[in-house]
């Protein structure tokens, strides 16, 4: 009985608002601070998880004699980078990567503009289905159809050509170019074009002075994304490359197989740093979430 009585008193103490305000304030402050500490720790761990792997690669790429249980390499050196440039011919490989990327971007943009225009400005029956279909190559992991691509390319002698590899990249670059550009064209307000012609502009001048500036940001955004996609592409390249078309990702993979972690790290840094830089540079212009491919109606 006594226990029950004291329990009853406790509850009523918390039930009403007649609590010392100072006590409430103290508790609140404690909880708030614990909360913020937790959040800060969480975010810190998150950032570390994402960036530490790259830090490790970077350290590996400039370290010498880093064996055993050391936190940092005892000596620093740029030898591995020299090795990458001289022995593994990283400059030529980078050229390959860039050439292929430029080709892929050009082809994807040329595909994306008319198709994006059609999707954005014309009524097409089953547009959503068609759009999902066109996005399939991005949803289905490339390994599934890369086999087919490889076999076809062998027959067509497209393997180990810059054009061939770029064409393989187009499989995954074009869908996104189409997606972005159809959104761009959809956003083109008819009335702005009408205003242009009412003001006296011929269709050609209208196009250059009115339409082009409006769609340029969309085109640029799609180009940036297709470029990074092609630059980073591995699976399809692996299936269609040859000794003349070794790209950075493929070479890095081969280096991992060779076992020289240091040189591999140097190559990885060369490969990765531009991408991250580009991401931070363009994050003001383009909604970066688009890069992840936020598809509607999955």
């Amino acid at each position, binding site marked *: 009985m006594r226990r029950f009585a004291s329990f009853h008193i406790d509850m009523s103490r918390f039930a009403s608002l007649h609590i010392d305000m100072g006590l409430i304030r103290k508790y609140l402050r404690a909880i708030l601070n614990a909360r913020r500490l937790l959040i800060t720790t*969480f*975010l810190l761990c*998150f950032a570390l998880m*994402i*960036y*530490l*792997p*790259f830090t*490790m*690669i970077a350290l*590996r790429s400039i370290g010498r004699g880093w064996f*055993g249980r*050391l*936190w940092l390499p005892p000596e620093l050196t740029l030898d591995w980078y020299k090795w990458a440039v001289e022995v593994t011919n990283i400059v030529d490989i980078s050229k390959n990567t860039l050439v292929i990327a430029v080709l892929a971007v050009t082809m994807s943009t*040329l*595909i994306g503009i*008319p*198709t*994006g225009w*059609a*999707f954005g400005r*014309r009524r*097409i029956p089953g547009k959503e289905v068609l759009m999902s279909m066109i996005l399939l*190559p991005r*949803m*289905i*992991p490339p*390994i*599934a*159809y*890369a*086999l*087919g691509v490889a*076999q076809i390319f062998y027959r067509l002698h497209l393997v180990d050509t810059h054009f061939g590899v770029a*064409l*393989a990249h*187009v*499989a995954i670059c*074009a*869908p996104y170019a189409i997606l972005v550009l159809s959104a761009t064209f959809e956003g083109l307000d008819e009335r702005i074009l009408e205003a242009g012609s009412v003001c006296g502009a011929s269709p050609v001048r209208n196009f250059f002075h009115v339409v082009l500036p409006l769609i340029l940001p969309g085109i640029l955004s799609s180009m940036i994304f297709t470029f*990074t996609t092609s630059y*980073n*592409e*591995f*699976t399809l390249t692996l299936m269609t490359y040859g000794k003349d078309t070794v790209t950075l990702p493929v070479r890095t*993979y081969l280096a*991992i197989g060779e076992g020289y972690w240091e040189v*591999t*790290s140097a190559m*990885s840094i060369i490969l*990765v740093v531009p991408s*991250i830089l580009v*991401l931070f540079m363009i*994050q003001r212009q383009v909604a*970066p*979430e688009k890069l*992840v*491919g936020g*598809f509607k109606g*999955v």
Partner: protein
Amino acid sequence: MKRGSKARTTLVTLIMMLPGLAAFFGLFFYPMLVTVVRSLRPEGEQAGWTLEHYAHFLAEPRARGVILLTFALSISATLCSIVFSLVLCLVLRRKPRGHRFFRLTMLIPRVVPGLIGALGLLLLFGSRGWVNLLLLQVLRFVDEPVAINYTIPGLILFYTWLYFPFTAVTTLSTLEGLDPAIEEAADVSGANRWQVLRHVVIPLITPGILAGSVLTFMAAFGAFSIPLIAGGNYRPLSVEIYRQINFTPARWSAASARAMIMAALQVVFLTIYMRILRRPSV
């Protein structure tokens, strides 16, 4: 006059769509067709039909293990991604200091080739990596370095690292699309923070989370570069496919059969998933 121009418009539309459709058919559909056909042909030959490649693979005792492994890795990674993305997005939507930086950070795994991410993770979690050094020397939790690389939990961690952004991005945008008045209404009605989360926020963002996690699952199921270099003895389906080509002479048909099995499994799973998603939601 009218009918003529309508036909012309349709023609123009079709012509404009041609490049995109050509790319789709030429670089995806036809290759898939080729893969299907090749999977049904005897190895190295151009004619004849056979189901031997499918039979061989499915009869192998390890086949079940491979498929199970692939599913286990993908589902675990997806679940981890969901939990992690939820926490991350709930934190980020209050816009704490530096939230723009963290929103970009969220995208890093998608901006770099999976290969490099895997390399970095291998270095970080290796026996001489900082994580083990921390456990050994600073925290002194263990006497021997913990094996994370080339283990299943390690693989799940790597998968999650690489593929959580898909889930995180959709979760964040769904969360931010929520009408704040709804949470305020729950607030005023007497619900504390956890109750608002449990009864109002999470039910309302679940469709968005699931939609994003589909992408994570699909990507994890077909993950290739990670298991290739960090899988060790564990070989999910995608690596199995690649192995077949690495034989000399390359076993294209065997590889194709495995690729078709993988594609079929993905389609089945996707259909089930979509059916769950299509349930009348708000």
